[in-house]
């Protein structure tokens, strides 16, 4: 098998918080009728729930996020993604559904530190201050699409397309520079 590498191979910057590309992550797009029994059953077999609108649920090292009324994003360890995609595809073969391993089309970042949300506030029109834990917000950071959520205390995770990973780490690095805190 080829040697998979993430977009920026863990590039990290220290500012008033730490911003880092998170390395290899598995990501699977699921598109189907989110209310279908087949989906609930297929996910239950993987010990995963069907998240409600805009929710992101984390179970045993995997996260599953509601992306739109007919789309979920499943985040898992990179090596797990191909087999998981196959299992879900087989389980949903009778449904009008699409399961695609998009791991290598995406990049993931973590912003860690006491004022982590300020880094995103400066880049996105979303109301980051009121973003509750357990909710994923799809919006933009400067000129590119991004989705982010509170992945821990003082930590935000952010997903973008891999093709713009260099642009996103640049945004995060500048936004996190020491002395540029908002409050």
């Amino acid at each position, binding site marked *: 098998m080829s040697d998979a590498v993430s977009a920026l191979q863990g590039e990290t910057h220290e500012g008033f918080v730490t911003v880092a590309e998170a390395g290899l992550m598995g990501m699977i797009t699921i598109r189907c009728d989110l209310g279908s029994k087949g989906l609930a059953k297929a996910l239950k077999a993987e010990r995963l729930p069907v998240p409600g609108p805009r929710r992101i649920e984390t179970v045993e090292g995997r996260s599953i996020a509601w992306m*739109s009324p007919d789309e979920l994003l499943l985040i898992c360890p990179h090596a797990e993604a191909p087999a998981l995609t196959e299992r879900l595809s087989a389980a949903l073969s009778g449904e009008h559904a699409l399961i695609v391993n998009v791991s290598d089309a995406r990049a993931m970042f973590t912003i860690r530190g006491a004022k982590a949300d300020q880094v995103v506030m400066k880049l996105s*029109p979303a109301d980051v201050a009121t973003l509750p834990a357990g909710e994923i*917000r799809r919006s*933009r950071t400067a000129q590119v699409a991004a989705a982010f959520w509170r992945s821990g205390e003082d930590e935000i995770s952010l997903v973008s397309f891999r093709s713009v990973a260099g642009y996103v780490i640049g945004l995060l690095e500048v936004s996190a520079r020491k002395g540029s805190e908002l409050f």
Partner: protein
Amino acid sequence: MLSLTCPCCGITAEETEFAPGGEAHLKRFGPGSSDEDFESYLFARKNPKGVHFERWRHAYGCGKWFLAARDTNTLEVFATYKAQTSEPPADVIAKIKAKRPDWEGYK
């Protein structure tokens, strides 16, 4: 600033998170229609100062299309509602009439 609430995901966001799609509730005239109808379908658009119905897409969010009734003059949004609607729903009309009693109505 124009803020819209996407009826597909429930997020209220400002304009730059959305992509505008022009006038809503257009009736398509294609092959077999009269030249006048076809021309009007392609080119003739309302451009009111006041109540207007528009298509919007939550481009940076859930990606879905929806419709919005708003005032082009004040940027007040009366309602947003699902795209699978061929004319403004009665409750949307009622909301607009409550706020703009002298509005001449849809069409």
